[in-house]
């Protein structure tokens, strides 16, 4: 069991605290009285086989998996990749779960087994991704026969029902299976329908993520999907990211840094300062972190996803007394964009506004019309291959409008654009709809703040987003003082982990 998170109130004795901004790490001083929210302690993982076996043998609301399998069962394992823990998992727990499920299937003598990767709007998995995540044993056993596929949301699926006149279609293999085992990792508390978002078609996803989509509609779509196939869900609940190597200092609390941590901090900073491109690429582009597996929950999908979110909440919630006027957060490139040490500006905004500021139990960290201060350069950089649609969205749509309600036509055009669709289907790029829906969530979250200020951010990008930019943290507070006064209550979300705010 790891140490729970806690809130540190900055006083005169508090040391300088870690700040993360794109690919830059630093130590900064915060004003007296600032509340610093530390997430639960990041600890290394142990072999999760016992937890997985327990979940397989004693699931909630259904029989043990072994009893549900027969030789003639058409079995499909759906590896969920809708919400991805970032940094990537050093030991991907989904691989261990897949292996254990396959061992059970082998014992039952099941012949027809296939694996479907349910990534939703995220980029599809290449064979390299499959081997990296699922391991050599699974890849050599299933890849040569084409028995691992990455779900393609643009392909015609099998309609399994209707909601409000809208047909709900899901992956063909999944729809035709006798039993579907969904395998996922829980990192966050708000994703209650990962299976549905992973395996439905583009039209359904478009409605699920539309601006102002009603929760009842989402629930009914999930009900249709869960009712259409026999599902056994397995969800591993993760702890906080435990970084090692050159970033070992980032997962520790500053006063606990030993000499190797201090050396790692100083050397990584010096390397990035001296050789910006290669060093930041090596350190921050594709970092890996070890996540402790808190629990593995198995059984009926409805119960499992709710229970897994509850376990994550219990393990990661941090009690914070009172809502702040200003919320401050670092935005580390390694925590949201794979392959880019700094991260694209749209994803940076989503990480700050939705992922971090939105990680609370109903009561936000900051009062209504408070101010968000985020550290990120907002450089307008996009991967040509993976983020082509995001680059065009940034260059062509945002200069026209930032209002999601006015973007319907642009969205339709982008989803029908053969270039983007080909990039998604064949070149492992994100689906264009992902950019639009990411922006919808950013715009919705921005409305609850009077100002969003980017420290060190590109002024033009901030202006394009309808946000503001400041050179330094002090300047940002100076700008914020117009709205929140000269002595605001400040809360700082610390480190690369994801604290869940239990604000009272």
């Amino acid at each position, binding site marked *: 069991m790891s140490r729970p998170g806690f809130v540190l109130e900055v006083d005169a004795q508090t040391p300088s605290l870690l700040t993360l901004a794109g690919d830059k790490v630093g130590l900064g001083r915060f004003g007296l009285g600032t509340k610093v929210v530390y997430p639960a302690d990041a600890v290394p993982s142990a072999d999760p086989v016992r937890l997985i*076996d327990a979940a397989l043998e004693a699931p909630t609301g259904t029989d043990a998996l072994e009893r549900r399998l027969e030789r003639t069962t058409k079995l499909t394992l759906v590896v969920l990749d809708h919400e991805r823990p970032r940094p990537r998992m050093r030991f991907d727990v989904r691989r261990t779960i897949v292996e254990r499920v396959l061992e059970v299937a082998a014992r039952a003598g099941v012949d027809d087994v296939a694996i479907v990767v349910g990534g939703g709007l995220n980029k599809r998995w290449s064979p390299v991704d499959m081997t990296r995540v699922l391991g050599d044993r699974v890849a050599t056993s299933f890849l040569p026969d084409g028995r691992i596929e990455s779900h393609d949301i643009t392909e015609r699926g099998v309609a399994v029902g209707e909601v409000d006149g809208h047909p709900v279609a899901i992956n063909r293999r999944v729809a035709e299976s006798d039993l579907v085992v969904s395998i996922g990792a829980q990192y966050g508390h708000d994703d209650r329908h990962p299976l549905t978002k992973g395996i439905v078609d583009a039209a359904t996803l478009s409605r699920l993520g539309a601006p102002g989509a009603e929760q009842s509609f989402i629930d009914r779509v999930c009900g249709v999907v869960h009712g259409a196939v026999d599902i056994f869900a397995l969800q591993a609940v993760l702890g906080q990211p435990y970084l090692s190597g050159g970033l070992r200092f980032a997962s520790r609390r500053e*006063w606990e840094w030993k000499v190797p941590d201090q050396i790692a901090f100083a050397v990584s900073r010096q390397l990035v*300062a001296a050789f910006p491109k290669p060093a930041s690429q090596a350190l921050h582009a594709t970092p890996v972190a070890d996540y402790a597996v808190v629990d593995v929950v198995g059984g009926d999908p409805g119960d499992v996803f709710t229970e897994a979110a509850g376990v994550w909440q219990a393990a990661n919630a941090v009690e914070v007394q009172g809502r702040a006027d200003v919320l401050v957060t670092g935005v580390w490139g390694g925590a949201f964009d794979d392959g880019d040490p700094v991260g694209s500006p749209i994803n940076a905004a989503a990480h700050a506004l939705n992922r971090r500021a939105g990680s609370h139990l109903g009561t936000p960290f900051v009062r209504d019309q408070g101010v968000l201060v985020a550290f990120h350069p907002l450089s307008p950089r996009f991967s040509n291959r993976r983020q082509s649609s995001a680059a065009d969205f940034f260059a062509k749509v945002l200069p026209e409008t930032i209002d999601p309600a006015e973007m319907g036509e642009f969205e339709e055009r982008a989803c029908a654009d053969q270039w983007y669709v080909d990039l998604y289907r064949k070149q492992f790029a994100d689906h264009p709809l992902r950019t639009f829906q990411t922006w919808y969530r950013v715009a919705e979250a921005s409305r609850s703040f009077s100002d969003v200020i980017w420290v060190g951010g590109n002024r033009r990008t901030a202006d394009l987003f309808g946000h503001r930019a400041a050179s330094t943290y002090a300047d940002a507070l100076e700008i914020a003082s117009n709205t929140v006064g000269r002595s605001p209550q400040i809360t700082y979300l610390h480190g690369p982990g994801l604290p869940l705010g239990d604000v009272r």
Partner: protein
Amino acid sequence: MSREFKSWASDAKRRRGPRITLVSDALRFFGRRMRRPAGAPPEVAQPTNRLGWQQLRALNLAGLFAPRVDLEVVGSDALVGLDTPFIFAANEAGRLDHQLLRIALPRRLRPGARRLSRALAKRHNIVVFSADPHGGRLVGEFDTVAAELAKQHSVAVVPVGIVGTFRLSQTLKLRLVRKPKVSVRFGAPIYARGQSIEDVTREVQARVEHLVNEGELSWWEVERRRLGGPDDSPATMPRWRRLWEQAAPRPSEPQRRRIWR
């Protein structure tokens, strides 16, 4: 463009040359001891015993001392993510088995074969070998030691198939044109929890036999045959045939491409 933007909001790139930060960072930490702030919980140890790729890829100079065999290590991916220590259960095919298994592994993972329980308690890996094979079989019988220790210490058993070491010490005395090939194959770990000692021993026996016979089959195929299919391991085989097959050229070995002929 329908929106209006601040004309002064410049997006000019600020190019900064290389900077020196090491000195200021070193001065920041030098001679200062940070105190735990009031209210912060005390530090707790965070031991990690899981085996990562880094440990498996650790520089293994021991291989240089086995220049007379062509050593092939298969399936080390199965060890990734395991908690150390664990028990290797290997077939005994010749006198050099233990040395070759040690050579195939990085220093930290090398198993001992004596004082097994004490070694496990000290978090060192151990190896348990099968008995000598009789009656033309390739793999001898395993006793219950591996299963008992796995249960007692709650550790995993990793089956290992060692192929090509039959009478290797005599073969190495010959003046050969090509090095004899030796294969060390690691299989999926076996967990003793919830199983009887006899069941675990039976599983170890079956998995090692299949690793030795595995050849070109995938893990899934081997697993299905092991659990449901016919036993296709050679029951009897004359000694000359075993040596003959052991010395056969590797079909999967890629031809080295040469640009300059």
